[in-house]
């Protein structure tokens, strides 16, 4: 092979594990549907200000147009205070996605670190950390979140912290399990044999190899975090009025559900679509990341 051919070959071959995963994910139609829907929501959330002005359309009351059904001006209708529901949904998407992603981020960082330490060092560390996690797991996560929010007060940040903390144990368990299976691999021993420190072995060799289950759990976790947030907002412990939030919109719309179905239906559909698409994507990722299904 000439030099040029080698060059070309290597640039073509330069696809790691992840491009392989992407190739497999692309073949899964349901996962791609999920990815498309969630991408649309993310785009809507990012450009929410361009599509509908926050103060003018999503917050400002206008009782003359209250509880109108879907029309040309308000494609999803208006709520009991005359605010455009579509605008509130896309601004609400910002809150929901942000809380969902950051809460999962908090849980992955704290839970992942604890799980990695427990799995890597074993023995006493493992026992102390995992028993503490077991105690956490014994409390229903939504109750734990309610307790934390009531203690800290209601704000978006506290909501993220509450939802994040209540899902720490599941990440700790997953990371611990995959660290346990990876730490006995020969390449970890090989890394020790070249003089690598524990931190280097954990960060450069173990974590990248245990990312797959964390990504799957994280994707599914964002969905349940959004659901928890909506739930907390529904009972008045989440995002405070007048800020738009899907759960809070459901909650305030429920009083008018007999005469104006659209006030509760559309936020509900938004929640449902987001959760569904994240779960489809998560399931697809799990299949794509499973080496046993490699073809």
């Amino acid at each position: 092979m000439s030099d040029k051919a080698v060059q070309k070959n290597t640039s073509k071959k330069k696809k790691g594990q992840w491009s392989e995963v992407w190739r497999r994910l692309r073949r899964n139609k349901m996962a791609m549907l999920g990815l498309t829907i969630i991408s649309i929501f993310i785009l809507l959330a990012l450009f929410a200000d361009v599509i509908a002005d926050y103060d003018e359309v999503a917050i400002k009351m206008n009782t003359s147009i209250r509880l109108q059904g879907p029309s040309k001006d308000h494609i999803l209708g208006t709520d009991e205070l005359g605010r455009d529901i579509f605008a509130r949904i896309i601004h609400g998407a910002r809150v929901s996605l942000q809380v969902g992603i950051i809460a999962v981020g908090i849980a992955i960082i704290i839970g992942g670190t604890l799980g990695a330490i427990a799995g890597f060092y074993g023995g006493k560390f493992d026992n102390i950390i995992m028993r503490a996690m077991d105690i956490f797991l014994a409390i229903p996560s939504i109750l734990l979140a309610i307790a934390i929010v009531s203690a800290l007060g209601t704000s978006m940040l506290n909501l993220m912290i509450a939802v994040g903390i209540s899902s720490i144990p599941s990440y700790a368990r997953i990371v611990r399990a995959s660290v346990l299976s990876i730490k006995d691999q020969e390449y970890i021993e090989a890394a020790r044999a070249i003089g690598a420190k524990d931190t280097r072995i954990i960060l450069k060799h173990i974590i990248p190899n245990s990312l797959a289950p964390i990504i799957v759990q994280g994707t599914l976790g964002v969905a349940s975090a959004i659901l928890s947030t909506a739930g907390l907002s529904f009972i008045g412990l989440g995002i405070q009025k007048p800020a738009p939030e899907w759960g809070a919109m459901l909650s305030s719309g429920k009083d008018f559900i007999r005469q104006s179905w659209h006030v509760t239906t559309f936020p509900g559909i938004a929640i449902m679509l987001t959760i569904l698409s994240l779960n489809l994507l998560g399931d697809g990722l799990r299949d794509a990341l499973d080496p046993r299904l490699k073809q």
Partner: protein
Amino acid sequence: MSNEFLNIKNLHIHYVTEEGTVKAVNGVNMEINKGETLGLVGETGAGKTTTALGILRLVPNPPGKIIDGEIFLEGQSILELPEDEMRMIRGNKVSMIFQDPMTALNPVMTVGEQISEVIEIHEKLSNKEAFEKAKKMLELVGIPGARAVDYPHQFSGGMKQRVVIAIALACNPGLLIADEPTTALDVTIQAQVLELMNNLKNEFNTAMLLITHDLGVVAEVCDKVAIMYAGEIVEYSKIEDLFENPSHPYTRGLFGSIPNLDEEVDRLKPIKGLMPDPTNLPSGCKFHPRCPHATEYCKENHPEDTEIAPEHKVKCHIYTGQVKPKGEI
């Protein structure tokens, strides 16, 4: 003395488990001079790999423990060194090639990154310089440098073992421990890899501890041989002496299990019996239950090293004159 790189004295390594103590290594002595190759031969479970891990102080602990003995690297005792200094030895002064190249490379790092990792740990080079050096190492083992950006699954088994060799030699170690480096490869690739290792070893004047159960491999590359049985070195000699005059009944048994091109025999003569259970080693000479010449004396007395020729030591009562062999040894 100044020429000596590794010296192991009376090394004992045990694995302490709830089911009992596995006596993996029992009083091993060996010396390797600079640039010399020592072959460590023995059956599975004879304690070869444990000895090798002991040199790097990487015996998994718990349950493994170095009970007794001393290991000197260039005259420096390494068993008392703090962990930090020990890390500077691993991969730098002493490096290791693992048995199975399929699992010894991290699947999510490019091979270039993995070679430059060892360089970054031990040499003060920037990422970029380390990567350049990694490419040079790859070319040294016969892989185009442009492939440094590829992942391990894009290489064949023989090429992966070359990458592992490149990692092991990247910091120009004084001692290379090769733990059955060719076992997982097919025969044609074995020859290539052995030749490559031998050439590089000579080029860098690296000493090598070659662990294998293949006497053919030993004959090809080693200067000295140690035959290991049940955690002990039962015969230790120069390569020529061993092949001309194998003395320990176990060594004889090993040779008897290999087909000989010059003689016509219908059946090979394997050593009867199995390796003893390392949690419950026999008394006296550990080989006596399988030895055709064993007597009551062997059952009760543990043989010591007997020098039957210069640099040819055997642990057997036949050579101390206590036991008469039954017929030809």
